[in-house]
């Protein structure tokens, strides 16, 4: 009863969302030019305008998308994904695992129980890896930021290339038959019977959507602010085409260098994408920027350390090598096309 009532109140917030979102440009103009009384065209004004416009825009987009995704995700679970993947052949399994990796709720802190649960029920190593690559790399926060700051084309390219990397990298790892590099205790583990799935009413699902907003936006808003603040500084103060000499298309080593720098750098999508968007504006090539972004988001040191519990070092390095190569190919491909 209480949930229902709260849900109605929450739904009433929706029109307010639309009013603010579609009047942001005008609101920012008023605030910057009339209230702050800043002169048009100076570096500082450009930066301030960018910050005041982009922060609420991205946060509003995040809120609505995470809410919707949070509801959709109540129909998915690792348990169901596992069942869907059981007995699938290598290639089909890789494709399915990658796609399901996008929609299945996943947090890198659950990577170990998930890995164990998959392996235990006989899902091939390569298929499990496809899931473990896609799940963190293609997430709703990244998609929203790319959509908000670059537009839907770049967001689609990111999802498409992310899927391509997850499918092929998982397939390659499967073909290499690296089971010997999984820690031995993994195969002797006895997992218990999975608990019954909870039954949710539609109101419960809406509530879960709001819980997801509270959890994720509550965590990433600070990174969004910092990322956009740095991006705003670059936007206003860094000269046009400044980045072309480091990250431009003509610099052949820029792609591998971006990947190498990106792997140990750990940030979430919320922090890195606004900065990358500003870099592209100043002449960085799309492929190079894409490769950098994917290396930062998709290959993170903390996750490798977590996975070290179940994987021997050679497998961790193979994993980084295979995914890194995939990112490299994507980077060069896009520099070549655009």
């Amino acid at each position, binding site marked *: 009863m209480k949930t229902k009532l709260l849900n109605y109140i929450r739904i009433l917030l929706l029109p307010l969302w639309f009013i603010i979102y579609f009047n942001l440009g005008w609101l920012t103009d008023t605030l910057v030019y009339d209230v702050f009384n800043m002169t048009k065209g100076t570096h500082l004004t450009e930066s301030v305008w960018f910050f005041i416009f982009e922060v609420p825009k991205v946060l509003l987009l995040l809120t609505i998308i995470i809410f919707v995704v949070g509801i959709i995700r109540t129909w998915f*679970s*690792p*348990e169901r994904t*596992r069942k869907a993947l059981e007995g699938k052949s290598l290639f089909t399994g890789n494709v399915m695992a990658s796609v399901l990796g996008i929609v299945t*709720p996943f*947090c890198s*802190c*659950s990577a*170990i*129980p*998930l890995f*164990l*649960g*998959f392996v*235990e029920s006989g899902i091939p190593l390569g298929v499990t890896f496809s899931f473990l690559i896609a799940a963190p790399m293609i997430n709703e926060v990244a998609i929203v930021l790319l959509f908000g700051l670059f537009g839907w084309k770049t967001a689609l390219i990111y999802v498409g290339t992310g899927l391509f990397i997850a499918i092929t990298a998982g397939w390659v790892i499967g073909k290499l038959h690296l089971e010997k590099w999984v820690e031995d*205790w993994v195969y002797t*583990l*006895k*997992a*218990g*019977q*999975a*608990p019954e799935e*909870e039954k949710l009413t539609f109101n419960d699902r809406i509530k879960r959507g709001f*819980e997801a907003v509270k*959890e994720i936006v509550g965590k990433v808003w600070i990174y969004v602010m910092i990322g956009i603040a740095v991006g705003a500084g670059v936007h206003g103060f860094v000269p046009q085409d400044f980045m072309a000499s480091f990250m431009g298309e003509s610099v052949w080593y820029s792609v591998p260098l971006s990947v190498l720098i990106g792997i140990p750098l750990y940030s979430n999508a919320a922090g890195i994408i606004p900065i990358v968007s500003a870099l592209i504006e100043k002449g960085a090539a799309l492929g190079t920027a894409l490769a950098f972004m994917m290396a930062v988001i998709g290959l993170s040191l903390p996750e490798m350390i977590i996975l070290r*519990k179940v994987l021997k070092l050679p497998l961790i390095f193979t994993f980084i090598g295979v995914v890194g190569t995939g990112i490299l190919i994507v980077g060069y491909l896009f520099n070549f096309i655009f």
Partner: protein
Amino acid sequence: MEIKILGTGCANCKNLEKAARMAVEELHLNATVVKEEDITKIMSYGIMRTPAMVVDEKVLFYGRVPSVSEIKEMLTR
């Protein structure tokens, strides 16, 4: 009543432990709250998402951190 919090030490696991302790305290339950961090023991409960809450060896929920009031509701049901 024995309450176990299953989790390998991530932030959410700590949040759940805190919430569980508060729920127990507010309900004046005669219960112990222990943390289970051993992954082989965690897996024996058949879950793939942490954190999870186990009450008297039965999994109550997993993969999320409900609010204190929701945990109280579940514990008294």
